[in-house]
Structures are given as structure tokens and as C-alpha cells.
């Protein structure tokens, strides 16, 4: 009695499949980025095939180290550029660059019902479309680009239901942090997480991408948001054409069902060093956590509603002395939208640094690297030891509104107190 993940994989493989089985599944779309694609190219060459299975179903999206900050990054970019040119794949060159999990849905490269693999762990993000989207390694990507299929273990499904009436400041980030606190960082290893419930039915797509994005932080293969009219409207606007909507059967069998009661839920903050360490923002406030840096962006929270929420909180305010605020729009379209909507002016007036679209400061390599003893509040998805720089730095994960409010307050704050 199939869950969404089982229905999608059954449709792809052409027969009913069961959790635990290993199947050879045709992929609708595959992509890699500037760190994972170059090793995949080497493996692809070892296979000895001359062409990819279908260039229109493969994208090369350099976003981690773009623009290059050292010679190694430049070499990686060059490898991506050469591969895309040789095989005629979809390509996002510098100048049209964007964060991969923001541009793939925005440009309609993946549709509801698709099977997508990305050589990036947050490739579960696109599951927000009601697709089976999963992260793989470079060797997997090489194989998928050559053969057009990949071995997959059909996952068990963990169902997460959000019920109740949250506080108006609660967004997708808070919901997923609450779910992670319930599941734990190994609460759904290799499972598909299926997100649903009345709170999700009201959620805009941007928030749904945030939900699905962090499924991997519970170890999941994919995070599928139950699709509905909001999904269809997004797919029609961004992808067009035909797609398949799968909803779970009434008697779908779940390995686990977690119900998250959102009644009165306040914004959440995941304290160091695990994304599942989520507590309410007021609990963190009683500790008085002073921050050195605030980061708004990434595949988790670099979309339109995230930038709007940050601009609304920052409007007319200034970042506290000694705090560095970094804002990274997820795509070129969003970068322009920030200018058109006046958000860029708001960010700059507040004293923020605007970065080019891409991964930005999320992973402590190219920009916004933290020194020993420094503390950041960030809208990204991981606060592991050393994730954003020095092993003795610390990261608190929160929503864009909380990160913006904290930048103004100089310490982790509830947006209500600043806006």
C-alpha cells in the first residue's frame, strides 16, 4: 500500500516495488556542482563512454566556489565548463550562477513525480515538488550520466504530520527544526520522509523547499512534501508540460509516523553542534547568545520569501556594532528581485554585505569563514563542529527573520522585538 516514494519508484521501474529492495531506476534529471562534478568527470572518463545519456537531463551548476577564490577553485570551475561544453549539458556559467537547489526548481528542471539525483547531499530539497530527489556521490553521478539509471534501495517511509496553529513568525525552517528535534539526526537514516498535515497544506512552495532540504539532517534519502494545488501552480509556472502527482494511499504503510504539534509554536533555534538541537528562541534568549556574524541565504533559506522576511525585519534598522551580516540571494533572478523590491537598499542601509548568488558562507570555505571563538546565527542547514570555519567557532541555525533580528540586536533575538 504505497507511500509517495514507493509510488514514484514503482512508476519509474515499471512494477510495484517494496521497501528494502534494490532497483535499477531510470533518472529523469541528474546534476553536479563544482566540488562533486570534477571527480565524477574522472570516473565518467574511466567508463570510456563518449557521450552522456541525454544532455538535456544533466546540469552542471558551479555554486560552491564561484567566483573562484584560489587556483584550485579556478581549476574546478574550468573542469565544469569544459565538460558542459563538450557534452552540451545544461550549464550555469558564472554570470548566470545560482545556488543549485534554488535554480533547479526555479528553472523547472525537475517536475512533480520525477526521479532526480544530485551529487550533493541536499538534493533531497527538490522532493518538495512531490518528486523523489536524492543525493548521491560523484561515482554515482558519473554512472547516472553515462547510463541514465542508478541503483537505489527503495526506502521505508517516515511520515511527518504537522498539526495545530503556530505563532505567526513560524516558517518552514522552524517546522523542520521542530521535526528534526523529534526525529534526531539519525531518526530517518535511508528513509524517505513524507511531509504532510494541515500546516503543510497552507505552506507556500518556498517553505516547502526548506522542509525538504533538511530531510537529510535526519539521515533521509529524500524529503517529499505531499503535493497539492500549490505544487501544481508552481510546476505549471516554472516547468510547464506534463507531470505526475502522487499522493499517499489511505492505507500507506509507514515505518514511523511523527506528529508535530505546532500549537503556539515559537520560532526555533538549533544550538551547536547538531541540527536536531532545536529549542525555542526564547529559551536561547535567556542565555543571551552574542553573535559575531549572521548569514541569510543557502539552499535552505535563499529564496524569495526568505529575502522578503529578512528585508521586512531589517527595514529601517541597522546591524549591531561588531556584527557582520551576509545576505546571499539564491539565484540571479532573486538578486534582481532584491533590487526591484528595494530589499537590496534595505540590506545595504542596514550594513549588510550582499554576496553573489551561490552557496555563500554556508560551508566555511570561500567567504564568511569564522575565527576561533566566534559565533554565528545562520539560516543554513548544518551547525556541525567547524562547519563555518574554525573548529572552536559555533553556529546557531534559525529562520531568516530570527537571523535578521539577531543581527540587529547583536544577540539571538525574536523578530517580534526588532520588527
Amino acid at each position, binding site marked *: 500500500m504505497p507511500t509517495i516514494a514507493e509510488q514514484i519508484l514503482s512508476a519509474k521501474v515499471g512494477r510495484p516495488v517494496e521497501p528494502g529492495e534494490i532497483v535499477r531506476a531510470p533518472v529523469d534529471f541528474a546534476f553536479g556542482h563544482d566540488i562533486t562534478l570534477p571527480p565524477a568527470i574522472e570516473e565518467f572518463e574511466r567508463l*570510456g563512454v563518449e557521450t*552522456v545519456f541525454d544532455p538535456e*537531463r544533466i546540469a552542471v551548476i558551479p555554486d560552491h566556489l564561484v567566483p573562484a577564490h584560489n587556483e584550485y577553485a579556478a581549476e574546478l570551475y574550468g573542469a565544469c565548463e569544459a565538460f558542459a561544453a563538450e557534452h552540451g549539458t545544461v550549464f550555469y556559467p558564472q554570470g548566470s550562477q545560482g545556488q543549485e537547489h534554488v535554480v533547479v526548481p526555479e528553472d523547472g528542471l525537475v517536475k512533480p513525480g520525477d526521479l532526480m539525483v544530485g551529487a550533493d*547531499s541536499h538534493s533531497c530539497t527538490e522532493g518538495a515538488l512531490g518528486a523523489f530527489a536524492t543525493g548521491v556521490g*560523484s*561515482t554515482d553521478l558519473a554512472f547516472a550520466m553515462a547510463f541514465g539509471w542508478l541503483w537505489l534501495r527503495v526506502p521505508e517511509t517516515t511520515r511527518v504530520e504537522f498539526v495545530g496553529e503556530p505563532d505567526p513568525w513560524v516558517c518552514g525552517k522552524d517546522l523542520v527544526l521542530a521535526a528534526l528535534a523529534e526525529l534526531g539526526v*539519525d531518526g530517518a*537514516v535511508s528513509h524517505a520522509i513524507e511531509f504532510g498535515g494541515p500546516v503543510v497544506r497552507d505552506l507556500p512552495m518556498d517553505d516547502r523547499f526548506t522542509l525538504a532540504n533538511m530531510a537529510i539532517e535526519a539521515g*533521509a534519502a529524500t524529503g517529499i512534501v505531499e503535493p497539492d494545488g500549490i505544487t501544481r501552480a508552481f510546476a505549471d509556472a516554472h516547468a510547464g508540460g506534463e507531470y505526475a502527482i502522487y499522493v499517499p494511499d489511505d492505507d500507506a504503510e509507514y515505518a514511523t509516523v511523527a506528529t508535530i504539534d505546532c500549537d503556539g509554536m515559537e520560532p526555533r533555534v538549533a544550538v551547536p553542534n547538531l541540527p536536531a538541537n532545536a529549542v525555542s528562541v526564547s529559551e536561547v534568549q535567556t542565555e543571551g547568545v552574542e553573535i559575531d556574524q549572521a548569514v541569510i541565504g543557502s539552499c535552505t533559506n535563499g529564496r524569495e520569501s526568505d529575502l522578503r522576511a529578512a528585508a521586512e525585519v531589517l527595514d529601517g534598522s541597522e546591524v549591531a556594532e561588531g556584527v557582520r551580516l551576509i545576505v546571499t540571494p539564491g539565484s540571479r533572478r532573486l538578486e534582481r528581485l532584491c533590487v526591484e523590491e528595494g530589499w537590496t537598499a534595505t540590506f545595504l542601509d542596514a550594513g549588510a554585505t550582499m554576496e553573489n548568488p551561490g552557496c555563500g558562507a554556508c560551508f566555511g570555505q570561500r567567504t564568511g569563514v569564522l575565527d576561533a571563538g566566534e559565533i554565528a546565527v545562520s539560516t543554513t542547514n548544518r551547525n556541525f563542529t567547524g562547519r563555518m570555519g574554525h573548529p572552536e567557532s559555533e553556529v546557531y541555525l534559525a529562520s531568516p527573520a530570527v537571523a535578521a533580528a539577531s543581527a540587529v540586536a547583536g544577540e539571538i533575538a525574536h523578530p517580534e522585538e526588532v520588527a
Partner: protein
Amino acid sequence: MGRAFVFGDDVDTDAIIRAEHVTSADPDALAAHAMGGADPTFAGRFEPGDVVVAGTNFGCGSSREHAALALKGAGASAVVAESFARIFFRNAINVGLPALRVESTAGISEGDALRVDVGEGSVTDETTGEVLRAASYPAFLRELVDAGGLIEYGRRLLAEGGEGPDGPASRRAGTGGP
């Protein structure tokens, strides 16, 4: 025979290979920084044949294959853990690093002499005499491991020009997809 290097639960990929060292996909170069985020002295002490032992959810975090490659480059005869993060497990199989899942690693102490038999799926702690049974690989994964990893398996498919037994044609070049 190798020595056990024991770690806890939730060892993430930043602990296995710090992002700043992901400047090469060469297993030998990566080996110099293996486990550096968890124990900077590891690479200097670990010798080929030694075994990485951990609790649950080993390799969580990033999809970077560099983590599996660093341990392969260091010459680990296997990683033995109570459970693996999904992408790390895939990567290990795909690059030919044995990843063995056992019920409990609690009885293994740092420095114990371990004998790992991947084919048989057993881990013998010669220091304590305890024998652990590893979960067996499904047939398809055994095929991959026997072939020497995913790429070797793919080369064999191409050489045979065959089709997958329960899936689409092994190579769909030019077919325009499913």
C-alpha cells in the same frame, strides 16, 4: 590483521575529511588528512590494514566522496559501524571501501587487533576473542563489490552490451530518457 581506531556515534564527513582538505580527489593525498576533524593525529598513526570502528550513523553530513576515498587511501581494511549514513554507504560501496554493519561495536576498544573477513562478513576481535557478524550485502551490492566498484561494474555492462535484468536498457544514450 589491523588495529582498531574507535570513534563514537554520528561521525560526520567534516570529521572524516575537513572541507579545507577537499582540494584533491586523490585517495593518497586525502589520506594525509583522514579523520582530521575528529583526531588530527589519526593520519600519522593509522597504517594500511587498520580498521575504523564507530557507533551509529557513521559518515553523516555531506555527500563528498572524498570521505570514503580518504579512508580508502589510508588503507583501511574496512569501516565497521553499527549503522552508516546513506550516502557514505553508497560511496563506500561504489569506490570499493568495505563498510560492514554489525549489531554493536561496544566491545571493541582502541588498539584491539581485528581480523576482518569481508567475503564472510565477520569481524574477529583477537584481543577479546569476540566474533561479530556483519549484515550481508544484497546480491546486487555483492555483484558491485565483486566487480571492484560501480565503475568497474559499468565497464563490464558496456563490454557485454547487455540490459539490466529488471530495469531499462543499461545505457539509454540517444533514447531521450524514460
